[in-house]
């Protein structure tokens, strides 16, 4: 009997089904790779960053010695501010470890406390000069090396020469820990301070404020201009070469690498218009040029989804074209426009490359007070900290990343909520 077509197909079926299963497997593997990468990213950042929300503090019984702070007894705020509070801390440390005599050891001992402790004492005295002459228990931030040891990032088994802390220092820290003088507390400094060279004093507040001003400028420019451009192109513009050209331009700008916008900002805003370097104002200008195409494209899509019957109804009632747009189409399209704008803002918040070009990478300690003050932004702060060698900055970089991601989640969540809340099927 000669094999029929059905037989031939039967013979090949097993192989074909296997190929089918393989093909399906590839797809599943790909999705898994993507999700695994996402998981790895989050695990690595959360794993490195969560510990930065706590910081080790040292308990010191500080004797506010009048002879050191205010030898003349005038209580003059200026001389109080200039007094040598470091001496008070040094004295306290010496009393804690009276056996330390060697000069070099003493210097190491003093370094267990953060240099920021001086300012804490100064602040206390400035607020309450009555403290002078009394003895107070003060919790001050420990040095980042102490913090790292307590958190277990410094390996005690490594030979002494390869460690950041030598055996003596570790012994002191252990002694402090044993008497309950070391404690991990919530790291308020991280959320309230500007940048610093000392990891235990470095915070993201300056960068958050810088990001805020930058985004305000971006929003103030790109939302009205983007909506106006979209309204013109979608509702008024005739179909001709000119509007085609504008459209091609917008689509291309949406795909231009962000760093090129930085070059534009550098040569136009800084060199040509001589606006101040490192200022959120310039950052906002550059970012609004960058987000404008996103806003325009989203706004046009939103305008397009308003059905023509609304327009015809308005025109039929005698509204002018401008009235039809302003009174009927625009309000209906607004939720979609807002959603697109929020997504554009979220992109602008995470953007750093163009801001490097306009000098927003400077080391800035002060929290900016306006859009013209030099400042940096959150993603650039992450970039700056990622470059520093201290181990303590690794966890702070990760923590700053977590904060940035939290902001992005909130913004994107708001966009999704807006879309769900106001989505209309016509």
């Amino acid at each position, binding site marked *: 009997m000669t094999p029929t077509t059905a037989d031939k197909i039967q013979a090949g079926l097993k192989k074909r089904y296997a190929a089918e299963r393989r093909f399906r497997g590839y797809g599943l593997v*790909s999705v898994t790779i993507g999700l695994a990468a996402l998981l790895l990213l989050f695990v690595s950042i959360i794993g490195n960053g969560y510990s930065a929300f706590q910081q080790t503090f040292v308990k010191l019984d500080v004797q506010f010695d009048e002879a050191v702070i205010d030898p003349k007894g005038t209580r003059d705020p200026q001389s109080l501010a200039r007094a040598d509070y470091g001496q008070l801390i040094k004295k306290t440390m010496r009393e804690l470890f009276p056996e330390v005599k060697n000069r070099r050891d003493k210097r190491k001992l003093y370094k267990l406390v953060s240099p920021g402790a001086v300012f804490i004492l100064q602040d206390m005295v400035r607020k309450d000069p009555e403290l002078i002459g009394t003895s107070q228990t003060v919790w001050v931030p420990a040095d980042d090396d102490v913090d790292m040891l307590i958190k277990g990032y410094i390996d005690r088994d490594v030979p002494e020469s390869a460690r950041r802390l030598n055996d003596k220092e570790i012994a002191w820290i252990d002694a402090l820990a044993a008497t309950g003088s070391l404690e991990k507390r919530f790291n308020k400094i991280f959320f309230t301070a500007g940048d610093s060279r000392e990891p235990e004093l470095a915070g993201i507040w300056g960068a958050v404020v810088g990001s805020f001003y930058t985004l305000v400028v971006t929003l103030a420019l790109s939302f009205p201009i983007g909506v*106006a451009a979209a309204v*013109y192109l979608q509702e008024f513009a005739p179909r001709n070469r000119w509007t085609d050209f504008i459209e091609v331009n*917008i689509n*291309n*700008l949406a795909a231009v690498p962000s*760093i090129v916008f930085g070059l*534009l900002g550098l040569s136009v805003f800084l060199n040509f218009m001589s606006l101040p370097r490192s200022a959120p104002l310039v950052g906002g200008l550059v970012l609004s040029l960058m987000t404008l195409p996103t806003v325009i494209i989203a706004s046009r899509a939103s305008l397009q989804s308003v059905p023509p019957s609304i327009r015809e109804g308005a025109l039929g009632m005698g509204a002018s074209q401008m009235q039809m747009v302003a009174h009927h189409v625009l309000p209906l399209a607004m939720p979609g426009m807002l959603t697109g704008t929020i997504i554009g803002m979220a992109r602008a918040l995470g953007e750093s490359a163009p801001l490097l070009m306009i000098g927003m990478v400077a080391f800035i300690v002060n929290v900016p007070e306006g859009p013209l003050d030099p400042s940096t932004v959150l993603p650039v702060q992450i970039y700056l900290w990622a470059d520093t060698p201290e181990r303590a900055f690794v966890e702070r970089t990760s923590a700053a990343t977590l904060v940035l*991601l939290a902001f992005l989640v909130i913004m994107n969540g708001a966009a999704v909520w807006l879309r769900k809340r106001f989505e209309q099927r016509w």
Partner: protein
Amino acid sequence: MSTPLLIAVLLLLAAAAFEFGRRRALQVAGPEFRTLHSLPRYYGSYTALWCALPALILLGAWLAFEDKIITILVIADLPAAYQSLSEPELNLIVNDLRNQLSGNVVSRELNLDMQAAVKHYGSLRATSKAALAVIFLSVAMLGMGLAWRKIAPDFWARNRVEAIVKVLLIICSTLAIFTTIGIVLSVLFESIRFFRAVPVFDFLFGLEWSPQTAIREDQVGSSGAFGAVPLFAGTLLISLIAMLVAAPVGLTSAIYLSEYSHPRFRAAAKPLLEILAGIPTVVYGFFAALTVAPLIRDAGTNFGLDVSSESALAAGLVMGIMIIPFVSSISDDVINAVPQSLRDGSLALGSTQSEMIRKVVLPAALPGIVGGLLLAISRAIGETMIVVMAAGLAANLTVNPLEAVTTVTVQIVTLLVGDQEFDSPKTLAAFALGLMLFLVTLALNVIALYVVRKYREQYE
């Protein structure tokens, strides 16, 4: 008065103008206000627009040219000995004057002439500020007055207001064109200056990149080499690695999610994958430097390979992860655009689902997928933060992904971050690189958009 204060005052004036205009309209119409051509608020808006717009235009022009004109006046007033100085030297002097005026550090002792110039500078600035305030406010008042006088029952206020608003809308929509022109001009001018110092041919085909400029003539290694081939090669290598990750993973996951997966799985997995697109690039860069690069180096050491800690592989892999959602969402669109009738026909002929996808859907979607991949490549080429943080600085001409290479974007950042003088080929080189980057990504985008559009038309 400071600029924000001026603007605040102007806003108040405009609000007042609105009210005046509205009242005036009602007043001229008398009891028969039906004889008014437009609603009273249009007369108000017309007055307010005439109050605010000319003043704002004046303010913008003033702020744009104030500094230039004052500088020219100050230089013209300097003693003759200074006039003969070359332009850079003159610029230095003007900078010193400015710094002295704003209380910053000055680079030299100021002699009597210069101190006089500082005074002159200061007085000119003060005059300019006062004049601006006066002229600005009088222009606003004048505009308001003129508009107010025009108000009459048969004055077509609504049409006028709508015409002005339309002009404003048109101006907003042309901003995209100005941005493009701005980009082109800003990189082009500096690039032309660069190509005067370094021949185009040397830049495009030179094999050595060491962007140094001599401070003294006899300095060692003073020549500097601006051959960009190693940068192009490095960029291509990293983009290639990224595409080797993103293209297959993105494409197959798009196929799986749109053709095979359970709707519930798709609803969960697709947004999760899209999170990858929303993560800032600086986070990817940090991830690459902190986690992936050490991982690859340790793995390499286990196999006895010498892997650089800034290997192209680490940067490329992470960049690939970043691009996955980009590729998969474009592929998803394109695959969904293939008509159902093609699928039905193929299945009816007895093909399995994978045969249908491989032999019918993919060939039909190929142009769109190619367009999408081109867009993804242009993304990869222009990506900055990942490579700045995870790739190297040294320009190696190599195809070994385990070595450190550098890219165009990394070099732009390194050349332009920090203090810079604007006349050395070193900084100008960054603009030439920017020009190359812009042209290449522009070409890729134009081709890709054209291909995608052609493809869409095919099935519509």
